[in-house]
């Protein structure tokens, strides 16, 4: 029985390096031999990056300004950072 069928269940442990050593070794060897399974595992990595990108939206400026204003009267504890000047 080809190992391909097991790859979807073992992929996370391989990617995160927290599966059993034996399983990770088997997956690693199989990925060198099987382009389809390599595409599956690489696709999970792409999906992870897309997930991070989808939540990278910046907060609204009014929210940031409200929060910055909480630091004190006139924000006197605030100093401009070098990259803001």
């Amino acid at each position, binding site marked *: 029985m080809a*190992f391909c069928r097991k790859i*979807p269940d073992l992929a*996370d442990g391989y990617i995160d390096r*927290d599966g059993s050593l034996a399983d990770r070794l088997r997956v690693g060897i199989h990925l060198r031999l099987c382009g389809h*399974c390599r595409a599956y595992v690489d*696709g999970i990595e792409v999906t992870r990056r897309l*997930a991070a990108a*989808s*939540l990278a939206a910046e*907060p609204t400026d009014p929210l940031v300004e409200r929060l910055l204003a909480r630091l004190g009267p006139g924000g006197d504890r605030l100093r401009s950072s070098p990259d803001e000047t």
Partner: protein
Amino acid sequence: MQTTLDLLRASLSLLAVAAAAAGAAIRIVADGDFVDRLRAGDAGAIRTLITRHHGALVGLAQSIVKSRAAAEDVVQETWIAVIEGVGRFDGRSALSTWILAILLNKARTVARRESRYVPLSEEGGSDLDEPAVPPERFAADGHWAVPPVPLDGVDPERIYAGRQIWRHVGDAIERLPPAQKAVLILRDVEGRDAAETCRLLELTPENQRILLHRARAKLRNLVEQLVAAPVGAPVLAKA
């Protein structure tokens, strides 16, 4: 008597532990200068911090308090607590871990006050037993009958089915069952490891593993259908 394989396993395990500890140490050391800037009231540092984590925090909060509006309130209160309390941050954990713990405590408090708190361990969704890949995609001999669509070079800004793909993925994350959403955000957006995710979300290791597996499989399936679909065809994948 230890065999060579036993020694190899032991060595690799020690290396893995050391690497994890080094990674955590690097994160804490790198925090040092940034925390000093936060304590000094550096507006640029505060803006950077909020921008870096805000989206993930809203998603995490929403997995507990359910409504988007309540989640945004929780996150705003979290930022206030962080900014006003950073002087007391002792640096024993990573700054982001400290922030996440504050957020989760506030979210649980709000949910309990509104009698809506349900432990994430009970909100994994009804699809946890479904296979990551439909069985019919494999032939009887275990090889791929319908191979995976390669996702190399998929750019978050690229348009599929009329919208940038990152928006499709964002919507799919919104629709995930609460526990799957929380685990995915902590693992793949905030970069927490399994042990820390279990601790923050009060999950068992097995539960966390299954939730992450299901969430990633759904998102991969959606992205694959978007990439593979002919222009104008509806995308039927649900997440």
